[in-house]
C-alpha cells in the first residue's frame, strides 16, 4: 500500500509556549499517523517520544514527569528522554528491548519541530524559514486550530488563494480580484514559491473600517510553501499606485509576515499552527492583535468548507472531478510532495518493464 505521509521531514508540533515546565505539560500529538508525546526537561531541552509504553502500549502522555524522565502511570515503568527504560517496579533486570522510540526534536522560531523519518537524516537546516513570535522586528500573534480534513485538501486550499474571494468574503478576501489572480509558481527545493499581486482592491472586510472610505490597495502575496504543508507568507499592502507590473509605486501601509504550519495527524485531520503580525515600522497599536484574531475567523471559514468537503471526498473517492485553471498551484505542490514520497519508498515504485 502506498504511503500517504512523507517521513523524512520536519513536522511542526506546535508553539513553544505550550511546552512549559508545568507538571501537566505532557502533550500528546498525532503526527503523520504516529502517536507522539512531547515535554520539556528541567534543563529546557525538548523531548519527543512515541506515546506508547513498551510494555502494553499504555499512553505515556497519561504519565508523570520525574526530572528529565517520564514514568508510565499504568505499571510504573520509567523512561529517560532517549526512550530507554530505567526502572521497572518489582524487578531488577531491565530487558534491552524495553525502549520507546524517540524522535529528533528541534525548536526554531517559536515552533517545535519533530522529524518523523530516519533520525540520521534529521538535518535542522531543512526546517522552513519562518519568523518567530519573539523576533525583535515583528509583532506576530499566534493561534492554532484542529481541522477534520485530509492535509492534501489543506495544500489545495493554501496553494490556490482564488478562494479568498468566496470563502473569506467578510474577512481576508471578498474582492473579485482574487478570483482572477494569475500567480507565478516556481518549484523550489522541497516546495513551491508563489508570487502575485492584486492591484486597486478594496481593503478586506476585517480592516476596511480602519482606512478612509474609498481607499484602494495594492497587495503583494509572496509565499513559500514547503513539505509537508508549511506556508510562510510576506504580505504587504500599499496604497494603490499606478504600476500594473512589478513592485507597487504606492505607499507601503502594512508590512506583515504570516507563518502557518499544517501538520497532518492522520488521513482525516490536521493540526494547524499559525501567526500573523506587522513589522515594528508599520505597526500601530492593536493592528497585529487584529491580524492574529482575523486568522482565527478566516480559518474557521476554511474549516467549515474543508470539513464538509472532506466528508464528500471520502464518500465518493472515485468521482472524476473537474479541474480548472486555478489548480496549477495545488497541482505543482502536490507533485513535489508525491515525488518526495515516491523517492523515499523506492520498493513501491519498482516496475518490471513489460
Amino acid at each position: 500500500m502506498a504511503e500517504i505521509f512523507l517521513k523524512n521531514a520536519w513536522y511542526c508540533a506546535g508553539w513553544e509556549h505550550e511546552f512549559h515546565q508545568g507538571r501537566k505539560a505532557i502533550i500528546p500529538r498525532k503526527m503523520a499517523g504516529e502517536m507522539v508525546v512531547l515535554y520539556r526537561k528541567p534543563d529546557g531541552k525538548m523531548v519527543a517520544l512515541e506515546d506508547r509504553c513498551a510494555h502494553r502500549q499504555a499512553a505515556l502522555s497519561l504519565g508523570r514527569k520525574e526530572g528529565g524522565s517520564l514514568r508510565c502511570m499504568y505499571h510504573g515503568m520509567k523512561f529517560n528522554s532517549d526512550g530507554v527504560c530505567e526502572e521497572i517496579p518489582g524487578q531488577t533486570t531491565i530487558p534491552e528491548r524495553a525502549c520507546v522510540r524517540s524522535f529528533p526534536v528541534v525548536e526554531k522560531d517559536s515552533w517545535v519541530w519533530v522529524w518523523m523519518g530516519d533520525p540520521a537524516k534529521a538535518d535542522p537546516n531543512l526546517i522552513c524559514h519562518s519568523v518567530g513570535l519573539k523576533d525583535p522586528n515583528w509583532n506576530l500573534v499566534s493561534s492554532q486550530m484542529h481541522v477534520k480534513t485530509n492535509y492534501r485538501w489543506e495544500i489545495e486550499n493554501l496553494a490556490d488563494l482564488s478562494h479568498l474571494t468566496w470563502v473569506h468574503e467578510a474577512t481576508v478576501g471578498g474582492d473579485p480580484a482574487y478570483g482572477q489572480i494569475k500567480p507565478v509558481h516556481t518549484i523550489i527545493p522541497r516546495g513551491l514559491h508563489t508570487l502575485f499581486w492584486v492591484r486597486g482592491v478594496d481593503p478586506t472586510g476585517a480592516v476596511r473600517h480602519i482606512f478612509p472610505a474609498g481607499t484602494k490597495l495594492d497587495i503583494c502575496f509572496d509565499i513559500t510553501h514547503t513539505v509537508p504543508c508549511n506556508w510562510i507568507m510576506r504580505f504587504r499592502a500599499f496604497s494603490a499606485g499606478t504600476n500594473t507590473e512589478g513592485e507597487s509605486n504606492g505607499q507601503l501601509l502594512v508590512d506583515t509576515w504570516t507563518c502557518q504550519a499544517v501538520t497532518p495527524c492522520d488521513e482525516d485531520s490536521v493540526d494547524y499552527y499559525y501567526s500573523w503580525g506587522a513589522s515594528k515600522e508599520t505597526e500601530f497599536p492593536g493592528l497585529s492583535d487584529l491580524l492574529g484574531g482575523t486568522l482565527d475567523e478566516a480559518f474557521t471559514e476554511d474549516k467549515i468548507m474543508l470539513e464538509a468537503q472532506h466528508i464528500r471526498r471520502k464518500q465518493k473517492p472515485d468521482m472524476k472531478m473537474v479541474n480548472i485553471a486555478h489548480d496549477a498551484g495545488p497541482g505543482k505542490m502536490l507533485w513535489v510532495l508525491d515525488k518526495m514520497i515516491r523517492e523515499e519508498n523506492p520498493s513501491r515504485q519498482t516496475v518490471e518493464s513489460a
Partner: protein
Amino acid sequence: MNPQTLLTLRIDAIRCEARDALLIELRDPAGDPLPPFTAGAHVELEIEPRLRRSYSLCNDPLERDRYCLGVGLARDSRGGSRRIHDSYRVGQLVRVSQPRNHFPLSAADGERLFIAGGIGITPIMAMIHQSQREGRPWKLHYCVRNRVRAAFYETLQALAPGRVHFHFDDEQQGRLFDADAALSQAPANAGIYTCGPEPLMKAVEAAGSRSGRAADDLHFEWFSAAAVDSAADKAFRVLLARTGIELQVPADRSLLDVLEENGCGVPYACREGTCGTCRTEVLAGDCEHRDTVLSAAEKAGNRAIMVCVSRGRSERIEIDL
C-alpha cells in the same frame, strides 16, 4: 492514501477465459489488502510509463485480496492489449491506478437487467456477484461472436443458467441482438446496465428511449473516447531553450511524455489539459492548443502551452525549459 497514487501489484495468475480474452489476477506483493472497489469499477493499467489502459474488475467486490481484470485482445491493437496478451507473465509486477467507478450499481433497482457485449462482460460479472449476494433478481443478455469467445461461459452456466441468455452471432443466422425485445421483458423499475461495443450500446440507448424508461435507470460504461481526434497528429521538434536540448515528439506521444522520458519532466497533475500544472512558456513556434486553461486570446497569443495535451503546429517549437 492519495487517490492518484499508483499501486504496484504482482500478477498472480493469468487464465485464458475464452479466445482472445485473458483473465489477469493481481495481488499486493506483500499480501496487504487492496483498496476496496465497488461493482462496475475499473483500474488503469500502466502498460509503459505514460501509456495507460482502463480495464474493468470482474471479481466480487467483497474480495479485498485481488483484482481480476478481463483483457480482450482488441483488433488492430498497437500497444495495450496486444502487449498484455503477448508478454505479460505470472510473477511480473505491474502498476495500476486505484479503482474508480463510473458505472456503479444503483441500490434503488427493483431488479437488474445486464446487457454485455464481448469483453464488456467484465464489469457485469462483478455486478452479478453483487446482485447474487444481495438476493436481487437479475437477468443477463450476453452477446458475443461465437461460443469460443464467450468469457465466463462455464461460470455463468454454473451460477444461474436460467438467468443468462446467450446471443451468439454465428448461431443467429445474422439476426442482430434485439434490444427492444430484451428491454420489454424487464419490469419498468429495473436498472439496466450495458457494457460492450459501441453499436450495442447505441442500440440499447435507442431502445431505452423508445421504451420511455427513466434515464436514471439506464447505465452505460462508455470506454472514454478521446475528445480530440488524434489520428492526424504529426511529429514535431521541441527546443528546450535553457539547456539547448532538442527533442523529437513522435505523432503518438505527448510532449510531456517525451520531456519525462528525457529527464526533463515538469510538474503535472491531470494530464488532460484542465488544471494548468504543466503550463510552460513558449518562446517560439506555433502551437495546437487543446487545453481548457488558456483563453482563446491566450491560445492565439501562443506564449504558453500545456505540455500534457497540446502540440507543436509548426515543425519546431521552442519552450522555456
